[in-house]
């Protein structure tokens, strides 16, 4: 215990530790502020879009009135009646847009959710009849259903949605859409989601592989407890070898002190965006939904996704974040054990970081087997079962990932200990 506390004290006394943590905090704050400015920009853009539509319909009303007057002068009563109907329709649309704009500005989301649900209802009722598309490429029925259910849950909880570059039907992007070319570009533009509140922003970050990045940086800062003291120029480890401490005690103290700091650093980096949000739009609701795929049943055509019959459900942010928390514990343990082992061989933090980053990147892309621990790095896709659905492999699950991290982490830690134990000569 004393050795462990001593190692912790050493880490805390280093100026590097404080400067690194401060830099990391500033970077995350910078990232939050950038996201906030983007959200504000999109918000203004959406309001401007409402105003453009409002002006457009007002112009239609004026043009139709003019045409009606001309028709009356010409004695064309049929045309005048037609124009009358058009004027009524345009005025209704104009009033509708006016109400929607006011609701958007006041953030009374219930009105907007009801409007979106009304627009999507026709496609829900008749999935084989009609659909909505982006430049001739249709949005899948699965996406429409998932979007509808998501809006329903948001309306029930009276929660704020993510902000998107559109005022019509904030679609939830799913894996069931296969857009190409300019349709894909447009789809990605309108479905890119930005979190307004703390929890939503955190979900957005987690989807961008924020946790692996934070853990890698944490390993870089805290993972050199033995390697930094066993180089050719710095032989501080020799001092420990002459103390009445067993090798196991030294190893455990150094290993655990680095891991504890890594864990605290990772949790701090997850908390910073939430703290920043307290000064802007608030934390938000923990009842917001996250889509979880239920997979596709095998059919006569082999493994294909069925956008009409495949099902899904939603979990709330609270359940999602509990899973993320447990994942952070075990993922950081796994990555730290790899980094620690590599650092015992390489002793250069830059190279160790590059190697670990390269191994993670290759591992993430090389195989989608459930026994590949790196496939669980993108934890959002594991919790939502996106990878399991796309690869038709139900074995790729959250619990499998955690078990793999624990077992492999322990094995690598033991290997690291044996490397340290048998490294009698420090040169």
């Amino acid at each position: 215990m004393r050795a462990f506390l001593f190692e912790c004290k050493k880490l805390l006394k280093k100026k590097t530790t404080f400067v690194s943590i401060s830099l990391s905090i500033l970077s995350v704050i910078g990232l939050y502020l950038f996201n906030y400015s983007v959200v504000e920009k999109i918000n203004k853009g959406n309001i401007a879009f409402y105003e453009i539509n409002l002006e457009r319909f007002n112009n239609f009303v004026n043009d139709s009135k003019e045409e009606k007057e001309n028709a009356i002068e010409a004695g064309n009563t049929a045309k005048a009646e037609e124009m009358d109907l058009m004027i009524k329709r345009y005025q209704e649309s104009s009033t509708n847009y006016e109400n929607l704009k006011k609701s958007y500005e006041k953030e009374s989301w219930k009105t907007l959710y009801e409007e979106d649900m009304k627009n999507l209802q026709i496609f829900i009722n008749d999935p084989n009849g009609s659909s909505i598309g982006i430049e001739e490429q249709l949005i899948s029925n699965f996406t429409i259903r998932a979007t509808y259910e998501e809006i329903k849950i948001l309306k029930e909880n009276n929660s704020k949605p993510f902000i998107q570059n559109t005022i019509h039907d904030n679609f939830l992007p799913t894996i069931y859409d296969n857009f190409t070319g300019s349709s894909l570009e447009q789809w990605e533009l309108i479905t890119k989601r930005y979190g307004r509140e703390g929890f939503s922003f955190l979900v957005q970050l987690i989807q961008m592989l924020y946790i692996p990045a934070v853990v890698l940086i944490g390993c870089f800062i805290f993972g050199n407890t033995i390697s930094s003291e066993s180089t050719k120029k710095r032989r501080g480890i020799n001092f420990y070898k002459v103390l009445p401490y067993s090798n196991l005690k030294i190893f455990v103290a150094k290993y655990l002190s680095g891991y504890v700091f890594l864990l605290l650093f990772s949790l701090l980096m997850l908390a910073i965006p939430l703290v920043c949000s307290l000064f802007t739009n608030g934390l938000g609701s923990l009842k917001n939904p996250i889509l979880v795929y239920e997979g596709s049943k095998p059919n006569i055509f082999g493994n294909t996704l069925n956008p009409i019959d495949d099902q899904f459900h939603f979990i709330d942010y609270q359940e999602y974040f509990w899973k993320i928390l447990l994942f952070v514990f075990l993922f950081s343990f796994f990555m730290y054990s790899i980094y620690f082992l590599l650092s015992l061989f390489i002793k250069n933090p830059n190279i160790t970081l590059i190697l670990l980053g390269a191994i993670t990147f290759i591992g993430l892309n090389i195989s989608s087997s459930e026994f590949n621990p790196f496939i669980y790095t993108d934890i959002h896709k594991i919790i939502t079962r996106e990878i399991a659905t796309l690869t038709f492999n139900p074995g790729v699950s959250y619990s499998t990932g955690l078990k793999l991290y624990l077992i492999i982490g322990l094995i690598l830690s033991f290997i690291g200990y044996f490397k340290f134990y048998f490294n009698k000569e420090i040169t």
Partner: protein
Amino acid sequence: MKLFLFEMKKIHHTRAFTIFIFLTVLFISGLYIKNYIQQDIIIANKVQQFSEHRSDVFGDIQLYRKQKEEGLLESETEKKLAVASKLHGEINELIQAIQDKKWETELLTEIKVYQSAIVYQEMKGTFEKSKKDMLDTISLNEELLKKGLPKEDMDLSIQPPIFMKKIVSLLLNPFGFLILLLILGTSITREFEEKNIQMVYVLPVSRPYYIMNKFISLVVIGIFWLFIVFFISYLLPYLFTETTENSFSYPLMSMEGNFITSSHYLKEAMIYSLFYMIFSISILIFFGFLIRNTIVTYLLIIFLHIGNFIILTNGFMYQVNPFTYGMVDLGVINDDTQSFFGTSLLFGASIVLMIMSIYMNKRRGIR
């Protein structure tokens, strides 16, 4: 000169750079082998894509024919049936040309298919491809026919210029340059941490001279890495692929829809990557000599690169931001970026950073 050679020798002795060069060659070779093996997939993907279009059109034809049999066919629908039948025939021709590997026929037939498809879409027929994409493809095919070149798959091609373009997009980006800096930067920060710099500063060599030598040696190493990237990505297809004559005239579409030749693209890519590499190294020298700590220097450089990558991928490309040119592929195909302005900006920024590094270290002690 001796100091410069000594710096080069030091970097070489760290072995990290040698391993990095080896891994770069391995990566490029691995990608080439993967593309070589997957050449048949290109044909399979094209056939699958047009087969899906064909079945959509055939579905419509069956519907119109059923309406005709029941006597429900209107004149509009009859016109649609005629266009759909013509389109169906042209798609069949196209699929045959793809399978027979007759590239000229393929290009000509594809133009016909998309022209008919645009007409069919205007009649509210089913053809799931955007009009903009079809028009772009027609322009590209016309350009290729003018130059006498077959169409290449931008991801799986093994023709030298297209393969080189793929390597540029994969390696010459903020992450690629970041890895290069992480490898090279140890030669600066470690000297301060291990106190070797004390010995250097007592030598009869001025500090500005020492810093400039450090900078030039790192730039030379960086240029060597860039040379390896471009050379290997050219050599492998040149040796093992049946290269098309005039392949370096292959037209590439810019963001605004204009065409640039692949030779022009590669020239600009080399220029941007060279100057961006010089700029990155000047940042490394600046922070390395300022902070003198490995972990903090690298964290700063990592955050700078990742932060700029996030800004760029969110569509905020500013010509006055030197980090914009770190995405070499995007910088070249973006019509708004001018290579003269970009390279001048990068070079100017590098000079400013070097002057600041020299000035800050002129009288600063070593602790």
